């Protein structure tokens, strides 16, 4: 197995383009690839569709992308957190579109995209606003929504450790959406806190096999784990 492309954050995002669909890992501030996001900001892309659990908190993560005017649409489960001030400002002015997806449905739609499925049938959202425009399928007397698989052009993934083959492990709840997003994008970029040698990761404990990874950056994020509380 040949090593994956190890690169800088700036080089990693080079092939990203306007109007792309982009998965970004993270839940709150855990597992957010902040350095890759910053590199996208600096590239001044436009018209991105961002798929992520939140719509950015304070001025970090996705809030940075929104602030820089890179984003046309946000697909997420929790857009209106108290700290999502940048998103709320743009959304209220009609400057950014929003698709709200139940968190578990979002996870399954992404996983289905990665697994080459067309979609899944879920009981979640039946009889709610989320069902609007979706096909309802009855099986054994129970109703399910047909939820379509979701893929992205690019995924920005935050990992704990990476080896030169692209194998990844995560840290605690920073795992969140990262492994399934890595499975479901055409080009997967990883920001890992540290790099280890081939063979240092236990084959039984690798969460994302390197076959899913296209490029990686090894860099410790300032604003990530173990920061001092404000």
């Amino acid at each position, binding site marked *: 197995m040949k090593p994956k492309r190890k690169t800088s954050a700036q080089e990693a995002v080079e092939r990203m383009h306007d109007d792309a669909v982009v998965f970004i890992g993270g839940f709150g501030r*855990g597992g957010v690839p902040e350095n890759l996001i910053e590199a996208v900001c600096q590239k001044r892309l436009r018209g991105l569709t961002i798929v992520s659990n939140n719509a950015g908190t304070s001025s970090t993560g996705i809030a940075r992308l929104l602030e820089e005017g890179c984003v046309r649409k946000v697909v997420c489960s929790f857009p209106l957190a108290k700290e999502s001030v940048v998103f709320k400002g743009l959304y209220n002015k009609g400057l950014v579109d929003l698709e709200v997806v139940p968190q578990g449905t979002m996870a399954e739609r992404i996983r289905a995209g990665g697994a080459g499925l067309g979609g899944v049938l879920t009981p*979640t959202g039946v*009889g709610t*606003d989320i069902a609007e425009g979706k096909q309802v399928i009855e099986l054994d007397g129970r109703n399910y929504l047909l939820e379509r698989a979701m893929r992205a052009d690019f995924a920005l993934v935050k990992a704990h450790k990476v080896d030169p083959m692209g194998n990844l492990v995560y840290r605690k*709840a920073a795992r969140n959406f990262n492994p*399934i997003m890595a499975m479901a994008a055409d080009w997967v970029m990883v920001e890992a806190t540290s790099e280890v040698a081939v063979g240092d990761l236990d084959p039984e404990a690798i969460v994302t096999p390197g076959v899913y990874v296209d490029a990686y950056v090894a860099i410790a994020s300032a604003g990530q784990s173990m*920061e*001092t509380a404000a």
Partner: protein
Amino acid sequence: MTATGLTLDQMAWRLAQELEPDWVVNVGIGMPLAVVPFVDPAKDIIFHSENGIIGMGPELEGTGVVDNDLLSAGKRPVSLIPGGSFVHHADSFALARGGRLDAAILGAYQVASNGDLANWKLPGARTGSIGGAMDIAIGARRVLAIMTHKTRDGEPKLVERLTYPPTALGVVTKVFTDLGVIAIREGRFILEEVAPGVEVGEVSAATGAELCTEKTCIMSLPR
């Protein structure tokens, strides 16, 4: 009128008594978080956090250092119990929808007598934050709602039919309010317990649907 009802701590204490030993329980953000400190550690409840924590331990306070990689769904620093583990988001919600949650504790805007739950979006609002509520409400074996009995404007939140956008249909099994404990069985609200000092008639009047009060007891509070 509800001045004689329970405090939030008392509501939370009462709900905590509902949890049985060894249950796997998901706790929503907001009011449900108040329940956790009242849960007897000897019950060995396994708390599930939607962001992939199985065996979430108590919240950490005042340590000065925050580990952003170990936050609750409410984004507060927590710990992991011995024997706890981490899974990714698809596996976390597989657990929630797949029937291994004995109970979910959720906040609510409205609960209908058929078990319908509204807790994510205000009527007429352009949008709201669903988070994991729809999946957890549909998946948990028991949905325990905790909310005030009435809105700030004095409108009933226990209703015959939802007027708020629903989160999930027919899922709520019990409601814990400042006035009492209301079970939902066969499409009816059943007042199982009334808060000490509150009249049963007062609860009926504050409820927007028929309330069965045949077997209502007065709630026993500690001390």
